[in-house]
């Protein structure tokens, strides 16, 4: 069977002073799959995502996406323009803007690129983009509050807003850093449903998650990270039965 890989991470190392945060990470993400990265706190999961979006530059190794090495002087906005969007662990939204504008801004970036001097266009005439933004707000159950300030949302709602901001970009690769943290059970289930729907759309996702319910509902493939190294990799069933994983991470978790 021939596999198409969307992302290929090879030999990535990253140290902070004496602390080895990532050691020789090799990871391939297959097109159209959901790849979960799990591991205890401080295992280097967020650090790994940060190297993908050029928030951090690895000490060595390469990260190939769409034929380009993302570690080779790429800017965060350049990487997003290639088709990588990210939901952060602490929601990164525009608190002073309305929900609608929060979702329209990423859509403009995808449509118009990293810079466009569109002073002589009326924002109010962007009806197509506006209705698309409303569509995504609706998908995430936020359409009713489209005119309120994003800063006034609860943390769970901010996260859902951020999800809409990423989805409207139709990314090739979506990075989700604990997308359901801080959400009520009901909203968590709703988010799982939504992420399953996107899966059918063919979007590739990398997801970091502590909630095993979420991980096992969504993931096609799981990599287990502990102390900066990948200790196990495989299909969800294989990971469940993996002795090393139980010891490092799942030991206390009922499965």
């Amino acid at each position, binding site marked *: 069977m021939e596999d198409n890989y969307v992302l290929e991470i090879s030999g990535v190392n990253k140290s902070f002073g004496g602390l080895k945060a990532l050691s020789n990470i090799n990871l391939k993400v297959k097109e159209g799959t959901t790849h979960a990265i799990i591991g205890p706190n401080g295992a280097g999961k967020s650090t790994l995502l940060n190297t993908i979006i050029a928030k951090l530059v690895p000490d060595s190794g390469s990260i190939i996406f769409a034929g380009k090495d993302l570690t080779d002087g790429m800017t965060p906005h350049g990487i997003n323009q290639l088709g990588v969007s990210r939901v952060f662990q602490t929601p990164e939204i525009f*608190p002073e803007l309305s929900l609608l504008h929060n979702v329209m801004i990423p859509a403009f970036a995808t449509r118009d690129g990293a810079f466009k001097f*569109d002073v002589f266009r009326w*924002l109010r005439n962007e009806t197509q983009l506006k209705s698309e933004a409303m569509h995504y707000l609706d998908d995430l159950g936020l359409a009713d509050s489209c005119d309120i300030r994003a800063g006034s949302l609860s943390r769970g709602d901010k996260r859902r807003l951020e999800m809409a901001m990423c989805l409207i970009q139709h990314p090739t690769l979506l990075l989700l850093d604990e997308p359901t943290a801080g959400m009520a059970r009901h909203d968590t289930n709703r988010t799982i449903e939504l992420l399953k729907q996107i899966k059918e759309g063919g979007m590739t996702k990398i997801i970091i998650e502590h909630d095993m319910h979420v991980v096992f509902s969504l993931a096609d493939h799981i990599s287990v990270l502990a102390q900066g190294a990948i200790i196990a990799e495989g299909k969800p069933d294989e990971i469940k039965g993996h002795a090393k994983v139980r010891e490092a991470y799942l030991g206390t978790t009922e499965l």
Partner: protein
Amino acid sequence: MDSINPSSKRKDSLGLIIFIIVVLTAPLWGKLIGAGYPDLLQKFAIFGLFAIGYNILFGLTGYLSFGHAVFLGIGSYTAAWSFKLLSMNPVPAVIFAILLSGIFAAAIGYVSLRRTGIYFAILTLAFAQMGYNLAYSVLTPITNGETGLRVLRDDPRVLDNAFGVQIEGSPVGNFFGIEMTGYSGYYFCAIMLILGFYLAMRVFRSPFGMKLVAIKSNQTRMEYTGYNPRPYLLTAFVISGMYAGLAGALMVIVDPLAGAERMQWTASGEVVLMTILGGVGTLIGPLIGAVVIKYFENIFSAINDSSLQATFNFLPEWLENIVVTIVSPFVGDGWHMTLGVLFMIVIIFMPGGIMEAISRLTAWIKRMRE
């Protein structure tokens, strides 16, 4: 508050029409509030433009520049040289002033925007002080140093000579036969103000303006959302520099003299005060702030000790002396003390400025009606 309000076409058109009427009838309503003379109205329009432009940078992107007076100065000197070398017609003066201040803004902005926050503010301040000192001493051949650059009768004025335009008496700006003094000078400024206001409205209501506000709101998110913030910030910086250059040119057009003092840091600080007093990030607020400050400056700085004594002479003499002693540091040359107090009151009680006061008041009236 979201400064890019979802606004309807009707509301914007109505606002613009009211704005145009108010500006064009200023000589009439000016009389009612004791501002019915052209010098003051010209100041309203000129500093209004300065503040409206400044607000595109500070109000939308949140980048506080402490050196925008340098572009005011560049605009003034350019306009004066256009008067000296080309023509007393204000049109080339305006065009060259906008272009040259835009070029300088691009250079200064390119360097300053490498930093944010207080470091950005200090960089712009440093550039402005450099500009001031250059104009004051080193560049004397261009700026005529502390005397200021005057437009003289026997300057070359190539275009005027080519078209046979004669200058009689001391040279004044001349718009195809209309002298740029008094009310005709005001109306030239007023038309520039209307154009400037309309452009600012387009910026505020455009996707570009929304993106500037988004940079102010969360620059990190902008970067991870696929935007390169630097060209956005630089464009906003250049636009605001051009507004300042236009304002500087208008100063020379209504009074053909350019001095280095208008580049001083106090002038840069004044436009910050105007913007904050009126309402940062609001479309009309900065203009209102400029008008209020220039209006009260005109009133307070005209008062001196003898007029104070005349005002308070109904009091017993010992009390009169006390009152005059207390009040006098706040008037005349000390008017900046009054401005400082006014500014503190606004910052502490109404950080959104006059516009916030107005919206609170209308909300209160609405509540009372219900």
